[in-house]
């Protein structure tokens, strides 16, 4: 509060003038105005007649803490109380950290203990930080000087003289380097610098293998049994009730080298339709089902989410990500949403033991479209 007097030295309640001298920016202003080209054209001499005059900054109103020492003391105590509360928050954090240990909790108490720990630590930390902030701002608002100070703003543009000197310096330097004269050096330098970017890009080549035909085939092969995902049971046709679905993968996929990559392509859904719901299937897909059991790729042809929402009554498959809807009665033709192509169908048959198997791999690439897909 004692330094309030220092602060008010360059306070101007009047419109800014170049008379206050304590501010360095203001001191400089006098020199600038002479050399400076007139700034915005918005101010012209004829303006006075067409615009209202600027009345200048409104008069400063004093705060209660400026006038009343008791009020100032109260503010001081409030600030101190906030800082004190912050210290309490820090203490709470430290105590909670050592007192509440989720690691000691039994499995059944784990969640409650983690919850308690999280709440107490968060409350302590939050209180500790928030109160420091509140104290500082309260202090600044009520006890630090709140007189508005006016500073001079100079235009960003440099003075003409500075510009001239800058250009002269650059010209001198360029002449010294002979950039204009020594064309051989200039051109060979450009030739050396230009391809540098390649050095950054070329080594990225080994980020991954080239796509090749990897996107076209999946782990499904003729004779591969269908197993349920994730339990891994093989499936017989009689096991699947009408209206039933099974999320399926090809047998043996769990032992493949890149299991997740293979699952990401091979994942499929098996659905059993009633005989009367099979009448609208495409002619060229006759015989792809086993007594009404059909299987489709689960990878959406839009951007690849697993399409798994099967509505048993309408026979629609819905993608949960972007709501593309496929009609299973019509070989998963798109009936709504952003997907453009039907889900690829997996041709099914049974093996000698009566288990459902794939008759072949998908006859087209699964998943989202890409340029080379054709």
């Amino acid at each position, binding site marked *: 509060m004692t330094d309030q007097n220092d602060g008010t030295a360059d306070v101007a309640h009047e419109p800014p003038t170049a008379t206050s001298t304590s501010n360095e920016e203001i001191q400089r202003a006098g020199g600038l105005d002479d050399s400076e080209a007139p700034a915005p054209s918005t101010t012209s001499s004829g303006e006075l007649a067409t615009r209202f005059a600027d009345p200048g900054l409104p008069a400063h109103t004093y705060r209660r803490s400026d006038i009343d020492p008791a009020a100032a003391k109260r503010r001081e105590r409030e600030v101190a109380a906030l800082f004190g509360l912050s210290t309490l928050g820090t203490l709470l954090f430290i105590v909670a950290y050592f007192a509440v240990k989720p690691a000691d909790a039994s499995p*059944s108490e784990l969640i409650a203990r983690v919850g308690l720990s999280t709440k107490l630590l968060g409350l302590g930390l939050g209180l500790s930080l928030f109160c420091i902030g509140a104290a500082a701002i309260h202090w600044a608002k009520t006890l630090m000087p709140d007189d508005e100070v006016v500073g001079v703003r100079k235009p960003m543009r440099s003075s003409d003289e500075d510009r001239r000197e800058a250009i002269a310096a650059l010209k001198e330097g360029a002449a010294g380097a002979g950039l204009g004269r020594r064309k051989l050096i200039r051109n060979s330098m450009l030739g050396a610098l230009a391809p540098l970017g390649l050095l950054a890009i070329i080594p990225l080549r080994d980020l991954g293998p080239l796509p090749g035909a990897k996107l076209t085939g999946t782990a499904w092969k003729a004779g591969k049994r269908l197993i349920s995902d994730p339990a891994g049971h093989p499936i017989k046709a009689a096991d699947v*009730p009408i209206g*039933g679905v*099974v999320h399926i993968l090809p047998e043996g996929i769990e032992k493949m080298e890149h299991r997740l990559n293979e699952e990401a392509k091979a994942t499929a859904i098996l659905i059993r339709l009633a005989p009367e719901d099979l009448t609208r299937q495409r002619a060229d897909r006759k015989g792809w089902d086993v007594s009404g059991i059909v299987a489709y790729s689960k990878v959406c042809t839009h951007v690849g989410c697993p399409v798994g929402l099967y509505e*048993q009554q309408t026979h629609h498959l819905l993608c949960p990500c972007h*709501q593309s*809807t496929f009609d299973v009665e019509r070989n998963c033709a798109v009936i709504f949403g952003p997907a453009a192509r039907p889900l690829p169908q997996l041709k099914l048959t049974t093996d000698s033991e009566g288990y459902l198997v794939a008759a072949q791999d998908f006859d087209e690439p699964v998943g989202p479209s890409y340029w080379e897909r054709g």
Partner: protein
Amino acid sequence: MHEHEHEHEPMHDQPPSHRHGSTRTFVRLLTTPLRALSRRRRSRFAPLVLLLLGLAITGGAYAAVAPPPQAEASTGVASASIKEGRQLYLKNCSSCHGLNAEGTSDGPSLVGVGAAAVDFQVGTGRMPARQDGPQIQRKRVEFTQDEINAMAAYVASLGPGPAVPDKEQLDYADADAAEGGAIYRTNCSMCHNFAGKGGALSRGKYAPSLDGVSPKHIYEAMLTGPQSMPVFGDGTMPPEDKKAIIKYLKITEQEASPGGASLGKIGPVTEGAVGWLVGLGALIACAVWLGAKAR
């Protein structure tokens, strides 16, 4: 697009499930919570235990007076119950499903849907249906469990279908919750969401929230595939898998949210709303306080 808005119960060829004496069931039900207690789940599972105890007492009381319905249905011992069920059926269901449950243009045939379908549909209040939207909703149950059992017995007597799961099928105490979670996320979460909060289907239909749904009804839903839901028959999803799913759902349903308010457990949408309205909102309020002149 032809869209059936009515129940469309599929045919089943599973045999009726195992039968158990009522006393054994009663004992089992009472021991379930005790076992849960002994597994050091006291504090956290207290509500679950209470729920189970409540269920056990009601179930036990019922079991003491009447044998389980599937037993009568298949053995035909309590034909009185079937008769009573038929009376209830004629009064409450036949206008849509036909005098002999053969189905009409207003409702599907109930021949072969099994007792489980009746117990689920009537036991969750979906039946008798009040048709006022794209989907028949869960609502107040209009019948006592006795009456439901009687109707279930009647429908089960019409043709073989999935029976109401018995107590052993519903005893999921020993099931593997983590495995259940994995099965749930492959087979169920795309519709019902990762925490069983439900999700949207096409054209106003939806997968309902699983909160507060009894294990029996969850089991029956998987077995019978009500409305839009597909059927998860025992052949491709064995009873152990179903139990594991139920255990996972019940554990996560009871589980407190360790990070504070759960915000509905529906993903980033509510989080975004809270981030804007509460987080940024509070900060802007602080900024306004900061910018206001003190008096």
